[in-house]
């Protein structure tokens, strides 16, 4: 899939910058440089390495309240300024070659004043000018961040989900290491997000790509995302030199009543591992409406039977009938990777907790 990346706010811009660095350092081409970085704080632009200067868009610098130094976490003010400057924000979209794109990702931290306030305005603006699906890649704050951040996130979540076509979330609370300062972990956390996002959305965009037998077409991905709502990503990988364990073989033997090949066992085990891995947003998997699974690795190791069984298992596990599967051949790779997208998950404890904390802040 080809998609434009639009970062909004400090977290969003840095994440876009990092995804772009991954693209530039790989043989994949998905954004083709179709990026924009919006912020109210011009100091954020100095931290960007890959987003070119002409794609930095300073929002609201002529407004007294902002003046190019950020929003101080006031999402209502940020949203109001963005609405006022709507035409200017729009004009920047012309820099994106949307005709060449299949979708747009608006990337933002939901707790930030700019991400949470300007972000939804940009999503709304994009949906009004383009027929493309406008997806959101959003980051939820940690519990330790102050109450207004949580309140921002809970409120902007409503706007992102309502105006965007699907919102993929990454929960910092579930992923960050409490032992060290959050600010020092952004790079690692962003790396995880980029890896998971690209494993699904940039599958098949390798320049020297072999044609996948069971290729995941862009339409397949879009069909899974079509549900709207909130979505989450799982991932697992294994070294191809890693043999399947005796335990895995025995388990497969007893479950199926017939013995599978070791390749089949390995693929099935890996899909399970990905589905049961820590998701970008932990949730009850059976609440998902549609799911997608991508297998990437050396073609000779991609057992069809193993993958079929894994897909069937996932369909039963998620209790949904729309589970699409595709592969991405990488002939010279020495690892196998499986990514899973759960689309429109509706039982999400972390969101319930976030809303509760937000209500407390709002009513206190």
């Amino acid at each position: 899939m080809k998609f434009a990346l639009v970062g909004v706010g400090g977290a969003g811009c840095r994440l876009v910058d990092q995804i772009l660095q991954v693209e530039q350092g790989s043989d994949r081409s998905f954004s083709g440089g179709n990026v924009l970085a919006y912020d109210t704080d011009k100091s954020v632009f100095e931290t960007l390495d890959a987003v070119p200067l002409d794609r930095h868009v300073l929002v609201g610098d002529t407004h007294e309240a902002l003046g190019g130094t950020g929003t101080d976490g006031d999402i209502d003010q940020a949203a109001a300024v963005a609405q006022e400057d709507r035409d200017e924000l729009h004009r920047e979209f012309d820099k994106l070659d949307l005709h060449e794109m299949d979708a747009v990702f608006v990337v933002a931290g939901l707790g930030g004043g700019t991400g949470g306030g300007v972000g939804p305005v940009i999503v709304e603006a994009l949906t009004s000018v383009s027929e493309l699906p406008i997806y959101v890649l959003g980051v939820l704050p940690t519990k330790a961040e102050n109450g207004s951040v949580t309140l921002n996130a809970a409120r902007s979540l409503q706007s992102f989900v309502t105006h965007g076509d699907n919102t993929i979330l990454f929960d910092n609370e579930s992923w960050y290491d409490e032992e060290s300062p959050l600010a020092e972990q952004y790079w690692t956390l962003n790396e995880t997000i980029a890896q998971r996002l690209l494993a699904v959305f940039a599958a098949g965009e390798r320049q020297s790509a072999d044609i996948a037998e069971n290729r995941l077409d862009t339409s397949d991905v879009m069909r899974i995302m079509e549900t709207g709502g909130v979505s989450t990503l799982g991932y697992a990988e294994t070294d191809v030199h890693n043999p399947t364990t005796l335990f895995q073989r025995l388990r497969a033997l007893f479950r199926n009543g017939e013995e599978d090949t070791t390749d089949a066992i390995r693929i099935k085990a890996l899909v399970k591992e990905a589905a049961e891995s820590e998701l970008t947003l932990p949730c009850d998997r059976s609440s998902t409406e549609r799911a997608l699974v991508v297998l990437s690795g050396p073609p000779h190791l991609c057992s069809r039977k193993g993958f079929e069984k894994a897909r069937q298992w996932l369909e039963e596990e998620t209790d949904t009938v729309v589970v699409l599967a595709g592969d991405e051949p990488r002939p010279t790779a020495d690892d196998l990777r499986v990514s899973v997208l759960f689309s429109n998950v509706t039982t999400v404890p972390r969101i319930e907790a976030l809303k509760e904390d937000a209500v407390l802040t709002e009513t206190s």
Partner: protein
Amino acid sequence: MGRKPPTTCPSSRPEVETHSPLVCEQGIANSLPAMKLATIGIGNAGTKILDRMLEFEYNTDRNLCRHALAINTARTDLAKPDFVPEDRRVLIGDTHQKAKGHGVGGDVDIGADVAKTDIEEIRRAFDDVEIHDVDAILVSAGLGGGTGSGAGPVVIDELQKMYDEPVYGLGVLPGKYEGGRPALNAARSLQSFVTNVDNFIAFDNDAWRMRDQTIEEGYEDMNRELATRIVTLLAAGEQDNTEVAENAMDSSDIMRTLNTGGVSSIGYASSKIDEEAGLIGKFRGDVQDFDDGATDAAKIKGLVRRAVNSRLTIPCEVSSADRALIVLSGPPETFARKGLESARQWLEQEADTVEVLAGDDPRENASELSAVVLLSNVTETPRIKELQSQAVDAQEKIKAQDAVREQEIEELITDDDNELDPVI
């Protein structure tokens, strides 16, 4: 343009009246030219099957498919065929908002919509098909995806309007393991296919799933098995008259057997020729060898029985067949008329029908003797029943999810007392 010829009987076969198989002694037909086919593969699976058919033809010196056309909604998949010429590949839906040359995401309704929108383009692709030169049209498609299942019936409907020649369907049913959505696509599409084609030859992925394959090898082996059966059957009797035996099969017999409409199944068995002895040597496959003392006639009867009792393209109750046909293909010196006739009589009893035709397909240089059995209009096929109930379950689940989707999303993002307001 060759459209709408005045009669249903191609003018190149004047003898068809006098040599009608109905009047043939013991139902064994006389020689007539073999079938000439226009073939269309739709979607990924349909295109791959077509490609394997062309490959088998090429490898065995047959000349059945006079025209080949591949139609798909995914640009990348159209790059795959080895035998379908590049100028015979048509991309549809590249301007469709939901397809854009990227496939239809397994959505049968979008598949149908895309084909309807681009019907002019599809029609144009038939402009260079000299329909006087073909006896029938075969459309191959997978029924579980979105393109074959959705665009297939639209194309067939158009072909039926344009031509008087019979249009046959060759459709792959998804396996149970492929899940609810493909089952729903297939169950819906099957209705449209069977209603619109003159006969629908079904292939059941479940019955043919093999072990130890990689995704890359994919369904190649299964597609080859299917191609072998369909081409051996339909190309029967194409050798020139000097080689034709008196029992030779011809296209009118095959078309007559297919005339029933409905769903059909094909059985197949082959055995390697022992070159030194010129007799049937070691039999291939999972069935045991015959006694060394068996006569050629007994071996031929055994081969036909094995064809029926082996994996059929779609497992079915043989006795539910309306008509049946046996083609024995191989070097003429291995043919034994008595064997074929007793095989025919045996099948007449098995299939519980008097309409069983049998004929030879002499192939001087063939290294195998093979028997193909066509069971036409079989009405008891457990997999189709199972597929339909799987589809009903899937449809209910999808409807139930659709019904609560908006509400569940709303509940997820808002708090119970509506204390929290959206930003915009």
